[in-house]
């Protein structure tokens, strides 16, 4: 349940950032797919149920916040979350380059799904720009890698601090 709480907190933070970006810099809000990044980072641990649930929750929030059709991003995020979780069960995702690649592929799959659903279901006229899709995938991947690097550094720092504190107690 702690992981669910962490995910809920992260989702709330992402939603807040999206709303603020949408108000201040509307163009920047579409550059990085923060909701998809959150879903992929959650699914990287390899739990397919967490991938599905996280995808549904993040997608529903994204559908509510953006002017898109209710259910569009939810379905796409669910598929991405499940696929990334299944992939993570088979490959080593603790290597940052692999994780980065998985994030980039996940974002591209999400984009293709959203565009595909809009086209197949004849909901809206879409004119997909390959460059935009690729740059979004790259930037989201870079943001994901930056997060993973920062999280790794923080974890190392916390371990070092705990070790130093233990040494100090022992020396006393």
């Amino acid at each position, binding site marked *: *349940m702690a992981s669910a709480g962490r995910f809920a907190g992260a989702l709330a933070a992402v939603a807040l950032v999206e*709303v603020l970006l949408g108000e201040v810099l509307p163009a920047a809000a579409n550059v990085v797919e923060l909701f998809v990044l959150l879903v992929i980072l959650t699914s990287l641990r390899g739990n*397919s*149920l967490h991938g*599905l*649930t996280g995808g*549904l929750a993040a997608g*529903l929030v994204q*559908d*509510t*916040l*953006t*002017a*898109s*059709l*209710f*259910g*569009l991003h*939810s*379905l796409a995020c*669910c598929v991405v979350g499940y696929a990334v979780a299944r992939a993570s069960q088979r490959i080593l995702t603790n290597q940052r380059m692999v994780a980065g690649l998985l994030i980039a592929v996940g974002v591209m799959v999400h984009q293709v799904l959203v565009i595909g*659903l809009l086209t197949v*279901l*004849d*909901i809206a006229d879409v004119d997909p720009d390959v460059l935009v899709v690729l740059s979004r995938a790259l930037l989201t991947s870079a943001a994901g890698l930056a997060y993973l690097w920062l999280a790794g550094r923080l974890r190392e720092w916390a371990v070092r601090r705990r070790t130093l504190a233990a040494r100090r107690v022992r020396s006393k």
Partner: protein
Amino acid sequence: MRRLRTVSWQLAGSALALSMVGLVLISSAELTAGYVSRQSLWIALGVVVMLIAALVDYTVLLRYAIWIYVVAVLALAAVTFFGHEAGGARSWIGIGGLGGQPSDFCKIATVLLLARRLADSQAPVPPRGGLWVTVAICALPVLLIARQPDLGGALMFVPALAAMTAVTGVSLRSALVAVGAALALVAGLWVFALQDYQKERVLSYFQPQADPLGSGYQVRQSRIAVGSGQALGKGYGEGTQSKLRFLPTPHTDFVFAVLAEEYGFAGVTLVMALFLLYLGNGVRIALAARDPAGLLLVVGLLAFLAGYVLYNTAMVVGLLPITGIPLPFLSYGGSFMLFCCAATGLMIGLDLRRFVNI
């Protein structure tokens, strides 16, 4: 995922079959482009939601039922301030585009909390408050939904509460108190919550011929649609009542009238058989549930869905006053479809955990 292979697929199969029938009816009654594609998207998402609800352990949901309920009620309260208006009711939450209806989410949250509380009431040390707290848990969302105003949605909590308390076992005195409270609630809703058009609809139920072009219009047109279907119906896309826009909302609340008009008695029998298969399987799952909370959870969800089916079909043929109550799996609507699929998934989840030791 492997565990899902042990589940009886009749429940999910009947739900999917009903959804497909609904899709055909919506495509037949389609007045504006895009309804079928949206409903298809929601059915696909509904299948995913069903899968998630089946895989999540219901005991975990019951453990955190109070928090789920609090979030749902807060979302419902938020509708009062940020809600979008749709069909005369302030029930859609969304900042950019159209979002879901939190009242549908609140139904599951309420059933979860009621199931937990009523199951605890059978323990050696029952929780405090007795029946009053149980009624209050149900009354809070009912009042919020009625305030939107969505009378139909609020009304559907009554069969769920009644069925769950009846299964738990209540004394005659408590039952009489509950009936009295329900009557007081109805009187309160009539005086404080109901809009004039809703009161007219209720009054037109008693005298549908009094105002055939006003408050009695919908029920009159609906009866014509149902009656004109006869034994085999007029055929796909041939329903004049829906095509010529005599029926006001043929794709949502009056989808059953479209079914009766285009597929006649045969189509109605088939759909009713599918509903019976669905509800029968639900009862089987309830009887095989491993604990009282599971039994109560299935009973509550089934009572909700059965209430919707009974009220909608009775409303369409003029046996009950017209209010915005959709037909599960058949009517057009995203969050209602997700509610139905989540309820089905929870029941499947209970079914696959029936042999698991606590």
